[in-house]
């Protein structure tokens, strides 16, 4: 219980500091914060209303608290470009981003873990060295470059898959629209699957050196059972925590992939908002991503405790 409380408190403290940074983001952008938030075409009426809403005539500490109160009530401000609430703009991009991240996680799991296990079982062999080399290569290749050539081969030359865009699965086409996410998810999965592969392999090799594995083998348990029941189960602990970070990181890493494939997700929204100087949207996305990251991080920490009772409060 104290472990749960301690972890939650630590996450809240981190969130508090992060929120200060995110609050100051608008103030660090050159120019009057009012016009940073409203754009150059704001009417005097809009300016006055925002000034009183954000308490801009008050000390900065009061401004921060006012902003925090607004955020806590779900008000992230208004998009300059869309002229609608930032929460609405983010929600519109959420479907694409969440689906893209989820499908990518499936690829990462299906490729990274089994191949990592095979590499570990054949530790030191040519197969192991080859797989590890390929993994390192995949982690070194720029994703957008891979994405562009996947578009060339599978969309332009073969015509098997669409090259860009993504219509919602709730619109015409239904679940078949997921094929729009096939190339993007593979692109995004490549470097991440490589990282999970390396982690699975390293983790398997670490556990295989433990005393209880030697004991299990000495007891005469079948080698396959030792690998899957004893080594893999314990090795996956480290992998599970990496899954959490990976999912959170995908939202940010998708910035480039969504731009290549012109997907209407949060990642592309970040880039377009930067080019449009739509600062409230950028601030909102950073805030949402950090909160998401901290929640996932906390859940990983807490589940770790359940999965591995050896974890003690530090």
């Amino acid at each position, binding site marked *: 219980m104290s472990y749960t409380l301690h972890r939650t408190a630590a996450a809240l*403290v*981190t*969130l508090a*500091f*992060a929120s200060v*940074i995110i609050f100051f*983001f608008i103030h*660090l*952008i050159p120019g009057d914060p009012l016009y940073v938030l409203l754009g150059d075409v704001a009417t005097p009426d809009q300016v006055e209303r925002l000034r009183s809403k954000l308490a801009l005539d008050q000390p900065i500490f009061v401004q921060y608290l006012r902003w925090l109160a607004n955020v806590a009530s779900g008000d992230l401000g208004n998009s300059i470009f869309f002229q609608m609430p930032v929460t609405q703009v983010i929600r519109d991009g959420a479907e694409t981003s969440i689906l893209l991240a989820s499908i990518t996680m499936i690829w990462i799991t299906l490729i990274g873990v089994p191949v990592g296990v095979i590499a570990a079982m054949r530790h030191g062999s040519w197969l192991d060295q080859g797989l590890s*080399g390929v993994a*390192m*290569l995949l*982690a*070194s*290749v*720029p994703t*957008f*470059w891979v994405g*562009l*050539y996947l*578009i*060339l081969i599978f969309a*332009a030359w073969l015509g098997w898959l669409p090259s860009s865009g993504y219509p919602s699965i709730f619109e015409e086409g239904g679940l078949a629209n997921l094929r729009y996410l096939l190339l993007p998810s593979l692109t995004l999965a490549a470097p991440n699957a490589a*990282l999970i592969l*390396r*982690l699975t392999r390293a983790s398997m090799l670490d556990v295989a050196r433990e005393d209880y594995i030697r004991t299990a083998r000495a007891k005469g348990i079948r080698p396959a059972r030792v690998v899957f029941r004893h080594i893999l189960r314990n090795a996956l602990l480290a992998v599970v925590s990496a899954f959490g*970070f*990976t999912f*959170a*990181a995908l*939202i*940010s*890493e998708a*910035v*480039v992939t969504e*731009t*290549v494939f012109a997907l209407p997700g949060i990642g592309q929204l*970040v*880039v377009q908002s*930067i*080019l449009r100087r739509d*600062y409230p949207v*950028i601030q909102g*996305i*950073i805030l949402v*991503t*950090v909160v998401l*990251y*901290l929640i996932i*991080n906390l859940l990983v920490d807490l589940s770790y405790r359940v999965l591995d009772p050896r974890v003690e409060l530090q």
Partner: protein
Amino acid sequence: MTGLRWYLAPFTSRPLALVGLMILITICVAAVFAPLLAPYDPSRLAPEARLLPPSGAHWFGTDQFGRDTLSRVIYGTRLALVIGIGVVTFALVTGVPAGVFSALFPRIGRIVMRMIDVLMSFPALLLALGLIVILGRGVSNAIIAIGVVYLTTTCRITYGLALRLRTETYVEAAISLGAGVAWTIRKHILPNLISPLLVQASFVFAFAQLAAASLDFLGLGAPPEIPSWGNMLAESRILITRAPWLLFFPGLSIAITAFSLNLVGDALRDQLDPRFRDMIAGPRR
């Protein structure tokens, strides 16, 4: 202390790592002697020679402005090195002192490490993009933005290493004999940090290449007049179907550079003291 032999040993037994090292040396040579090696001026416009496929006159072809791709790839090594050296320097200069002092003075350390936790709660690319929004586009700003991302991991690793070194018997003995902080750092901490941090630096150098290429690709990195590999990909992106070869060589250059750095870093990491080896982290997410 470790000598030159220590650093070269892994390359004699691992041919792939040796190849990586040689590629890196080639890149450095290309960057220094770019004007001599490049067959054409990298920014020379030649409307009559637009979008030529690879040939004897233009080994890597030409782009939509008739500029020679090979020459631009060769000149691109310069920005790749500037970004890599810049980011590594930034991360080391900020992260190492912060990490060492945090380990030696636990009271300051707790606050500093909490700040690092806060910075790490921002996903890497989003943190860099946010800083670019504040600082503006440009090479030095890209270096600072990516440098801040990697100062976090560098500081954490230094902190972890210094904490361990702090509890070594010989360090405790030195301190109990009256050794000062400055002397302890100079004599015991820093020399032992060199090889682990060199490994970390080679990984940071590799990630910096990919991060900078992403910024360039999004139009938020180096200014367009600089022939960087990322800019070349960004400019020719829409021509992927008309001139597929155009994007091949700049992208390959980024991949080969990052791959070589990872190979070299991996080989050096296996040389490290096993107690320190596990602390060298993967890419900052």
